[in-house]
């Protein structure tokens, strides 16, 4: 009944770093309104996959294509991809000394407005906007005056990533192990943030090791990545099986 519109199409993607091939013939299509989870053992290429999508300069695309909303993005810089609506929540959010979270968030928000040809907003307008967003991840306003991720606990860093996602309102969000290192309360807050954020015109990729995130954020598909390609795709049932049997049974 409803026609699926692809947001992201990955076609035969081959990627290397320092001449080592990490992704091999990767194929994946993600449609609007879908949540895809990518699971897989350490070193299978999940983080590489997320960074390649975001345009990290360290990775070299050898072959294949990445199509975002109908257009190839391989020639675009990370900055431009961000403006198009691709967001990466980092596995290890970076600490930026000397830069307040407020300035950072405002600059990111205004950069996006500018790229869209819209007028930038002033610090006071921004404050009222960000106060609303802070509530969604249950963070206190004092957190704005702290330096970006500096001295943040693991949970605060991850919440900050979700806050940025909510603020920048991307079409495609890639959440790289956003659940790792979180206690149950923080996991609930973050899952709640993700669920509130998700809309029918968006798509989310969840990279995770654990089934517990998928109990809170229900994916439409679960993929298992191994040796740089997707070796199995299934539904929530697959996560159950993986939890019980590990990755070994797939081989």
């Amino acid at each position, binding site marked *: 009944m409803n026609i699926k519109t692809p947001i992201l199409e990955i076609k035969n993607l081959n990627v290397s*770093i*320092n001449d080592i091939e990490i992704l091999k013939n990767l194929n994946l299509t993600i449609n609007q309104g879908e949540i895809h989870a990518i699971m897989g053992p350490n070193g299978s290429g999940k983080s590489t996959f997320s960074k390649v999508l*975001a*345009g*990290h*300069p*360290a990775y*070299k695309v050898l072959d294949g294509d990445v199509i975002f909303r109908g257009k190839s993005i391989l020639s675009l*810089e*990370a*900055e431009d991809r*961000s*403006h198009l609506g691709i*967001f*990466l929540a*980092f596995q290890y*959010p*970076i600490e*930026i*000394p*000397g*830069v*307040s979270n407020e*300035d*950072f968030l405002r*600059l*990111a928000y205004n*950069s*996006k407005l500018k*790229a869209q040809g819209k007028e930038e907003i002033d610090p006071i307008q921004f404050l009222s906007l960000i106060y609303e967003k802070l509530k969604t991840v249950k963070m206190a306003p004092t957190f704005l005056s702290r*330096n970006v991720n500096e001295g943040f606990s693991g949970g605060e860093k991850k919440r900050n990533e979700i806050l*940025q996602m909510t603020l*920048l309102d991307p079409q495609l969000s890639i959440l790289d192990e956003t659940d790792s290192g979180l206690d149950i309360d923080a996991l609930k807050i973050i899952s709640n943030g993700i669920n509130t954020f998700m809309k029918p015109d968006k798509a989310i990729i969840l990279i995770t090791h654990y089934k517990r995130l998928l109990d809170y954020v229900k994916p439409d598909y679960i993929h298992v990545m191994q040796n740089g390609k997707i070796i199995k795709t299934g539904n929530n049932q697959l996560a159950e099986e993986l939890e019980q049997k590990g990755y070994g049974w797939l081989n």
Partner: protein
Amino acid sequence: MSNQSNKILNTNITKLVNQPYKYGFSTNIEKEIIEKGLNESIIHLISQKKNEPNFLLNFRLKAYKKWKQMKCPDWSQLKFSEIDYQNIIYYSAPKLKKKLKSLDEVDPELLKTFEKLGISLTEQKQLTNVAVDAVFDSVSIGTTFQEELAEYGVIFCAISEAIQDYPELIKKYLGTVVPIGDNYYSALNSAVFTDGSFCYIPKGIKCPLELSTYFRINEKESGQFERTLIIADENSTVSYLEGCTAPQYDDNQLHAAIVELIAFDNATIKYSTVQNWYSGNSIGKGGIYNFVTKRGLSIGVNSKISWTQVETGSAITWKYPGCILAGTNSQGEFYSVALTNQYQQADTGSKMIHIGSNSRSRIVSKGISTGKSKNSYRGFVNITNKAFNTRNYSQCDSLLIGNQSNANTFPFISVQNLTTKLEHEASTSKIGEEQIFYFLQRGISIEKAIELIISGFCQEVFTELPLEFAEEADRLLSLKLEGSIG
């Protein structure tokens, strides 16, 4: 991370930081030069040219003797080829036809030079709230607002003028804060200094204007040996700023200055520097060798001396502005931003010598190194045995941009009185590929990212600069760090 991405990051940063030096022009002007080389007769000649009283000639000769016995210090992290002191011109001055009655009579070529540097000496265009002394090579060209300042009893003039007009003040105070033999370069400066600024703020006066000296090295083979002496009498206050630039030459030029500050009871001196000497080209050729001794003597009760420096230029920077806190309750401060790029080397920091009880000092040093540069903080905090209940706080932060630059911190602390409270904090952070990628992923351009990081990093120091110059400093760093892309 990977070589490939390092390369990309480094090219981006290199593009960003390698802005052309915009003060690199030189002025063609008729000048009077004493031949190259250094010996007693040259010193006699300099003294004679300046028509100096005998005590000063003796001061110079004594310094020269001392200097000959001394050796170039080798304890710093700096690497440079040996300086041939016989191959330097020690006196170079624009030829003046007659004694000038007003600044409007200064050679238009010189006025133009300073105007190009953003310093207007002619009456119509002077900054309204800053008095400027302009020093070109070995001599002062002129000082603005002298008459206005004189109404308050404030003396602000070239030191060569002060030697003529106020010899008793010079005789009494010159060399009292930085003794002739303090170090190799101070001995050299004491022997051959040619000009610089002199300020005297009388008792109870809050100097109504910012005082400022602008130093310009023009002559290719000359050294600049400036000497500044500022005396703030009881209950007086003064804020002073120096700026400096030089043309772009392939050879290194030597700049060895001395600044002495004296603050009496309840007096405050705020001394700010925005140093932008030519720093050499992208392969490390040329640039100023900047060997400077700056020291303040807080001799009075409740006296305060505050140093703020923004060091962006010079091939080599060697300076440790310090305070001798002799007075009870005296205060010393040092705020510094040192930015090095390409092959620049900076070895800079502060000395705080606590002698008076309840004296307090604060050191905030921010080093930014990029390119292949080396940036070291070197500090000395000395609490002497009779200094009771003193307080020192030192903070040294280093920021590395890219992965080929170098940052060091060498804090020396000596405590001989157990009633002191002393804190030292240090941090090193790096802007590498991953930080930049984080910004880019959030849609922030590399220029904006670096601008934000730098201004956040330096904020604590910039707020200490006089308002007019905070902007200049920001502009200076921006000039060096941004704008080439897009």
